């Protein structure tokens, strides 16, 4: 937290020039790595699978999935909540840590923001896909129409489209705004004509004038100030989709903070899962250092403990409240047909991540990669547990029904992961994965002899 600790983990040999060259050359000069090609091939195949799954869904309807009554929400909503949550850590890193003047965030905010945008894009698909008539999704948007209808403003599903829509737009604006000075750098550095034109158009003619920078800094900081409450509001609204329902296991006031903690938890896990291979494949270990991984691992541990606490409070509330349906829903969750899922959640989200208490684990990239994947799986299963296990057994035992996924359920999930990877792999090849202008500022601020103010005076 202290501004004095910005003595960057980058090592003394980096200057504004060398840092720029190194990051820009990942995009401009570095030849395509075989690992990237293999990953891109797999991601493309899965993206095609997603397109096939969507096409077949549009042709046949949601009956191709395993959904039934009462489990009308299953994989699509699980995927939706999971993907939105993953996106949240990106905004948290780029906006909230900026406000808290955490200088180490500079190395990781750009790719974390990209992660946010691609995750939210995947999330945004899911509610549309699960509509019976997806071609009418725009009916949620208030516009004067020939049916003379307006949305029902008291419904969290309507709040959802405002929250998600705002989140997508603000995330893209924030990301692109931060990219503009770096796009200008790429424009100035490349000697290939089509890249000069392409990056030049995207850079909007940025030339680094002092007044422009002053407005840019203010705008960026204000944007961060807006994005921070936004990210909390988005997952709170998503959780209200559930807690406004009367289903036992959903109808709870703990949901907003519980969902936000889980969102950040899965998001830090995804950030680690993306950062560790990326820094190895593109030689960025000097920028995304072990220290960065350790900090992200610490945040993952903290949010994981909040999630574990939420699980405990759910149990406590059920018995403290004494509502027989809540108690039954809880018993069903941990001892009913979905008990293996629920205990896997406890294992993945509560038990295994305790290894992060050990400093050696927090500093070991391989271990962090495995733990990140474990948490991602655990968080997906948690969303599944909340949604499906609760729905499958509501008030009337005569209507109880088990959900079993079909091939198309699994294809949509795998395809969305593939499409996310597809977008992310394109991003690391065509755009700077680390903010060059912020790194230059950080390097200069870390040099005491220049006597410059630190980044904390950016406001």
């Amino acid at each position, binding site marked *: 937290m202290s501004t004095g600790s910005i003595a960057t983990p980058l090592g003394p040999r980096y200057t504004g020039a060398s840092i720029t060259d190194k990051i820009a050359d990942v995009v401009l000069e570095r030849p395509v790595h075989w690992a990237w090609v293999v990953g891109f091939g797999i991601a493309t195949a899965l993206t095609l699978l997603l397109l096939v799954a969507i096409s077949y869904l549009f042709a046949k309807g949601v009956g191709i999935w395993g959904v039934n009554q009462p489990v009308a929400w299953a994989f699509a909503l699980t995927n939706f909540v999971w993907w939105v949550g993953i996106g949240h850590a990106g905004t948290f890193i780029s906006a909230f840590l900026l406000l808290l003047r955490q200088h180490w965030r500079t190395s990781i905010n750009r790719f974390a923001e990209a992660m946010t945008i691609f995750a939210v894009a995947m999330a945004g698909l899911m509610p549309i896909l699960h509509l019976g008539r997806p071609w009418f999704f725009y009916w949620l948007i208030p516009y004067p129409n020939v049916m003379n209808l*307006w949305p029902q*403003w008291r419904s969290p599903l309507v709040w959802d489209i405002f929250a998600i829509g705002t989140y997508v737009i*603000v995330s893209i604006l924030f990301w692109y705004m931060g990219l503009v000075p770096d796009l200008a750098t790429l424009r100035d550095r490349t000697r290939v004509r089509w890249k000069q034109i392409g990056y*030049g158009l995207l850079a909007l003619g940025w030339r680094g*004038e002092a007044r422009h920078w002053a407005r840019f800094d203010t705008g960026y900081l204000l944007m961060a100030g807006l994005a921070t409450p936004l990210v909390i509001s988005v997952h709170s609204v998503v959780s209200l989709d559930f807690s406004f329902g009367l289903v036992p296991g959903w109808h709870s006031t703990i949901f907003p903070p519980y969902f936000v903690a889980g969102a950040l938890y899965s998001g830090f896990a995804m950030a680690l899962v993306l950062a560790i291979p990326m820094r190895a494949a593109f030689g960025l270990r000097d920028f995304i250092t072990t220290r960065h991984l350790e900090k992200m691992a610490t945040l993952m541990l903290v949010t994981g403990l909040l999630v574990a606490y939420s699980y405990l409070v759910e149990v406590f509330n059920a018995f403290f409240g004494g509502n027989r349906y809540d108690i039954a829903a809880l018993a069903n969750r941990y001892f009913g047909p979905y008990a293996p899922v629920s205990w896997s959640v406890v294992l993945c989200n509560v038990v295994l991540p305790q290894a992060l208490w050990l400093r050696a684990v927090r500093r070991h990239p391989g271990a962090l990669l495995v733990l990140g994947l474990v948490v991602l799986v655990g968080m997906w299963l948690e969303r599944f547990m909340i949604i499906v296990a609760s729905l499958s057994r509501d008030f009337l035992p005569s209507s109880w029904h088990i959900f079993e996924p079909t091939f198309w359920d699994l294809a949509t999930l795998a395809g969305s992961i593939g499409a996310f990877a597809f977008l992310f792999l394109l991003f690391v090849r065509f755009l700077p994965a680390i903010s060059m202008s912020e790194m230059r500022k950080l390097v200069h601020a870390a040099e005491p002899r220049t006597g410059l103010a630190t980044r904390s005076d950016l406001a």
Partner: protein
Amino acid sequence: MSTADDTSGNGVRASGAKPTGTAARSPVDPVSAGDDDAHVRLYGLLGEFATPNALVQAARAARERYKHVDAYAPYSVEGLAEAVGFTRNRVPLVALLGGLAGGAGAYFLQWYTAVIDYPIDAGGRPLHSWPAFIPATFELTVLGAALAIFFGLWLMNGLPRLNHPLFNAPDFDLASRNRFFLCIRASDAAFDLHDTTHFLRSLHSLRVSEVREEAA
């Protein structure tokens, strides 16, 4: 390009030796002396610096003699905008107005549709159920402010502007990497090619070059 850079750098020094009459027109184009673009209008003189401190000090000194001074840096340098005379930052005001417009618009829309245009009596609950209107109001407040910041920022910065005389200047591609530049524009009343060149050189700049309105 690199050869043109070199001649231009030397050219300024050569032309700096002779006294020049008018501010806006230089008798000899330093970039390609003798070519037919000698008539291309002068945009200003550009001094190049190695460190942000040198640039801030140069900018302060330049502002004492000139008004039309611009500074260029590869990242936001503390105090540089103030050194070139930037005082009124309107970005926060624009953000506030955008947020207010978004929030007020959202609340009005909800109130109008739920109370006036399409009232639904749900178990006798009030039509103007303001707590339920808060989430959409909050989201659109944020959206309005963010859109205002984003578009207001580019508008106030005069961007997008894909071409600019400075992009013709030698070394200016380093302005997005590790070099710092100070431009004194020819439009300034106190601008004089000879004097201003000497002035910029006296600030310990790495090089001083002329910037033309069009590509040479």
